[in-house]
């Protein structure tokens, strides 16, 4: 009975319409795949908590196609403002288009992570599906042969943590007191160790969704001050 009640109460997170994008767009921008969909599923399960926090300012770092930020911007409507960053200029344009095609607004800014944002504890909801694949550090710095940004969608450097860690190391200045932060990781990123590093900044973290995809063990972590 209780289980039934739960299914009825569960609000759904609509997957944004991406039909405005075609195969050639995905030559330049990360195409949503299992990690993106696990992320959406995890956020859907957390809708009640997200609504409880009443985020005024949301930020997605590395928005790619914009599938995640658009889902959130639609969910929260006029009660919130969503900002998305990506260092890939095509991703910024495509995120902008995806929001528009889904009749919502996402403010897109081309930048490295959150580097050009004011650090004054203003972000209430932070979302990051980072480049998490284990690679050499060189791989993550090098521009693609054709000036392409696509490899930066997955190349994560040592332990797949180099990009993620640059965001985590000052997270305390970025997030508001009531904030929620969701992060996609794989097993090789060492989620336990991420939790420990975040605990030092006063955040408690837990894995709220996991899925094995081919040989990758994907998880979504949620952090809150506590």
């Amino acid at each position, binding site marked *: 009975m209780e289980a039934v009640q739960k299914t009825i109460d569960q609000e759904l997170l609509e997957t944004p319409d991406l039909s405005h994008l075609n195969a050639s767009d995905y030559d330049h921008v990360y195409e949503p795949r299992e990690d993106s969909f696990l992320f959406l599923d995890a956020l859907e399960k957390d809708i009640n908590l997200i609504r409880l926090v009443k985020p005024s300012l949301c930020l997605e770092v590395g928005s790619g196609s914009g599938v995640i930020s658009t889902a959130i911007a639609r969910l929260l409507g006029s009660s919130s403002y969503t900002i998305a960053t990506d260092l890939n200029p095509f991703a910024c344009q495509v995120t902008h288009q995806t929001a528009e095609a889904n009749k919502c607004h996402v403010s897109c*800014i081309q930048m490295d992570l959150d580097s050009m944002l004011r650090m004054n504890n203003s972000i209430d909801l932070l979302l990051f599906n980072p480049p998490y694949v284990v690679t050499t550090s060189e791989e*993550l710095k090098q521009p693609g042969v054709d000036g392409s940004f696509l490899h930066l969608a997955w190349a994560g450097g040592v332990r797949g943590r180099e990009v993620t860690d640059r965001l985590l190391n000052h997270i305390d200045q970025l997030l508001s007191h009531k904030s929620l932060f969701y992060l996609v990781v794989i097993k090789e990123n060492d989620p336990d160790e991420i939790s420990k590093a975040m605990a030092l900044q006063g955040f408690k973290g837990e894995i709220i969704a996991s899925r094995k995809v081919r040989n990758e063990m994907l998880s979504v972590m949620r952090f809150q001050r506590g």
Partner: protein
Amino acid sequence: MKLLTHNVLSSKCLKGVSVGYPLRLNATDIKVVDVDYNSEFVSRMIPKINYSALYDAAQSIGHLNGLPDAVVDDFESNEDFLKAVHHVLLEVDIVSGDLECPESGRKFPITRGIPNMLVNENEVNEINGSNGYNN
């Protein structure tokens, strides 16, 4: 780019820049759009934004539209005030122009509504690090 976005941007991570806020705004193309008004949201945003930076930015591009120069005391219940803030925060959209660091003068172009705030690795403070892909 909405003025709400301008309000949260800073160039503090640039080498030699100590405050980097607010960024100077030069607009060459501005579009005014209709955005659903949510008084409760605007009222929640007031304590989060830097009001004088918003006021100055709106004034510098000639889009004050009656915005008062300071937050009114009864802002939570003052619909006229909240509507004026709503308009300036969300309905004034910069399509092209640039943002400029108030200290170093470094310019960041805004094209098709999207600011490009990507800098070279050698422009930022060491502690911030960077992907430095375009070095």
